[in-house]
């Protein structure tokens, strides 16, 4: 570094350090702008993730159904689920439906996993308790009304079937068998007693079923035949879900994956509008920040017109003065950008915790973007007043006119 370059740095540093109070005012304007910009950038990019989690209260957004005549088997289901990344899967619930009789009235049993069902159907409202194991049932409100079932009742679900040579009857008590007096064929009314722990209210078709554990259904129907349908709740947007569904459909011969359009489409629509809103707010803030920084830098540079006039009188070329003042401005912009990136993260965190009740994801890439934007805005804000200041006649400035 030669003496001229050293002197350049000495002048810039002296201006920044010894004119501290002025520089702090300028720096403050830049830091505030960079903080808001950085915070809104973080929120803008985090909105899809935040909203995807929020939207999960709508319930499942992907449905697996059998693609052929066979039901979905456990291993096929696990393969299908593995197409999602682990952080995308909020939960999944397999359903197996069987017809039964309760109080000699037809009803439909739905075998589910009680531990996971609220992840795919968080809107379920249960009067009473969720069943905690075998021998317990959750009864849909409509079924309960039709059959006169109340919480705390014990109901008996009956599986009536014809006994053939293939039927494994080893665990069935003898009194459940009977013969048709006309044909002489052997029948069985295999029953399962269920304690009703709660009544399910959703206002929808879910109220038409009696929910039992998959193990109870296997023991009542003497077979584990797989699942009729699987509800999947995944924290991902419509495009990603479509992509995963296509992959599953092309890879699996037994599963057909479909998006729940009313959920995914409304999610996508709301998200697009929300992102547009944040984008517009970010753009408006950026413009306001530019105006604020430009006004401050204009004031800071205007009060140095006499110094600029003096430098010209000492033989400084315009290009040299622009370089010195721009260097100061860009340094301020850089420092302001760094501070703004850090403070912006905390600002975004504050907003996220208050709006979404969850923390924001830190994105390192936004740091250089914020610094670059801060430097660019400060540079542009400085350029206009500097260019106007160097056009000043040094003789007039030095005379104080």
């Amino acid at each position: 570094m030669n003496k001229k370059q050293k002197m350049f740095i000495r002048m810039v540093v002296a201006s920044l350090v010894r004119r501290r109070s002025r520089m702090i005012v300028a720096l403050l304007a830049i830091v505030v702008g960079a903080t808001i910009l950085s915070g809104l950038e973080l929120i803008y990019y985090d909105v899809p993730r935040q909203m995807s989690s929020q939207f999960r209260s709508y319930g499942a957004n992907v449905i697996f159904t059998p693609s052929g005549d066979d039901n979905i088997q456990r291993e096929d289901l696990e393969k299908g689920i593995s197409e999602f990344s682990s952080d995308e899967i909020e939960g999944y619930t397999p359903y197996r439906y069987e017809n039964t009789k309760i109080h000699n009235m037809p009803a439909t049993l739905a075998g589910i996993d009680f531990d996971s069902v609220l992840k795919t159907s968080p809107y379920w409202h249960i009067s009473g308790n969720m069943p905690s194991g075998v021998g317990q049932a959750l009864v849909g409100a409509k079924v309960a009304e039709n059959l006169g079932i109340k919480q705390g009742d014990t109901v008996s679900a009956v599986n009536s079937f014809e006994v053939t040579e293939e039927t494994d009857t080893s665990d069935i008590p003898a009194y459940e068998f009977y013969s048709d007096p006309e044909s002489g064929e052997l029948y069985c009314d295999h029953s399962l007693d269920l304690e009703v722990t709660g009544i399910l209210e959703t206002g929808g078709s879910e109220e038409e079923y009696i929910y039992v554990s998959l193990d109870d259904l296997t023991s009542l129907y003497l077979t584990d035949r797989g699942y009729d349908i699987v509800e999947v709740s995944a924290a991902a947007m419509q495009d990603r879900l479509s992509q995963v569904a296509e992959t599953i459909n092309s890879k699996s011969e037994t599963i057909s994956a479909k998006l729940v359009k009313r959920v995914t489409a409304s999610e996508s629509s709301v998200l697009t509008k929300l992102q547009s809103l944040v984008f517009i707010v970010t753009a408006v803030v950026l413009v306001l920040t530019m105006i604020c920084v430009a006004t401050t830098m204009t004031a800071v540079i205007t009060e140095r017109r006499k110094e600029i006039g003096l430098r010209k009188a000492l033989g400084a070329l315009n290009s040299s003065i622009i370089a010195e003042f721009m260097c100061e401005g860009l340094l301020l912009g850089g420092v302001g950008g760094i501070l703004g990136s850090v403070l912006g993260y905390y600002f975004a965190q504050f907003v996220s915790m208050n709006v979404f009740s969850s923390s924001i994801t830190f994105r390192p890439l936004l740091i250089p973007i914020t610094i670059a934007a801060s430097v660019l805005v400060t540079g542009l804000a400085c350029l206009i007043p500097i260019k106007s200041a160097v056009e000043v006649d040094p003789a007039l400035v030095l005379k104080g006119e």
Partner: protein
Amino acid sequence: MSKLLELKNISKIYGDLHALDNVSLDVDKGEWIAIMGPSGSGKSTMMNIIGCMDKPTSGQVIFDGKDISKESRRKLTEFHRDKIGLVFQQFHLINYLNAVENVMVAQYYHSMPDEKEALAALERVGLKDRAKHLPSQLSGGEQQRVCIARALINSPELILADEPTGNLDEKNENIVLDIFRQLHKEGTSLVVVTHDPEVGEVAQRIVRLEHGKIVSDKKNESFSD
């Protein structure tokens, strides 16, 4: 003695105002001239034209044999940076640079800053021990001496001073005039614009301006080095 500066039929017109009206003036190398006159007489306009900070409306400015009256702004800036040292009534030091840094700024725009040379220039005006002080920590007289050191640092052919003692008390005025005497002895040309008769009386030659015209131009008989 050869001519350092020639103003030939210089006029400077602002609208209807003739700030300088067909003025001609020669300055020899090593000469000390005082340009005197009341406010509005054209002193400052003449100083700006001599200092290459302004151009005449008509006429020629010949500096060291070179006609500079038609040069571009950029050329004029380069020319005055190399040939002329400026001393201002209000000192015009950069307030966030200390004394030696203020002197080095002139070196920076001229050629290459050198702190030792800048300290030597401050020593010449008796301020070496105040080199690290900011302008706000210096008295008016000290600030003017820093301003003179800054004007001297690039060894200019001409020192152009605009009311150099206008803001000084008598003691500091004498210090500044002693420095001018010393510079003159060393062969530096000086043009001092002033309305103070005491400052004018110490010059070698006194030029009087009124209403943009030279009304008298005579040697100072009482001048002594």
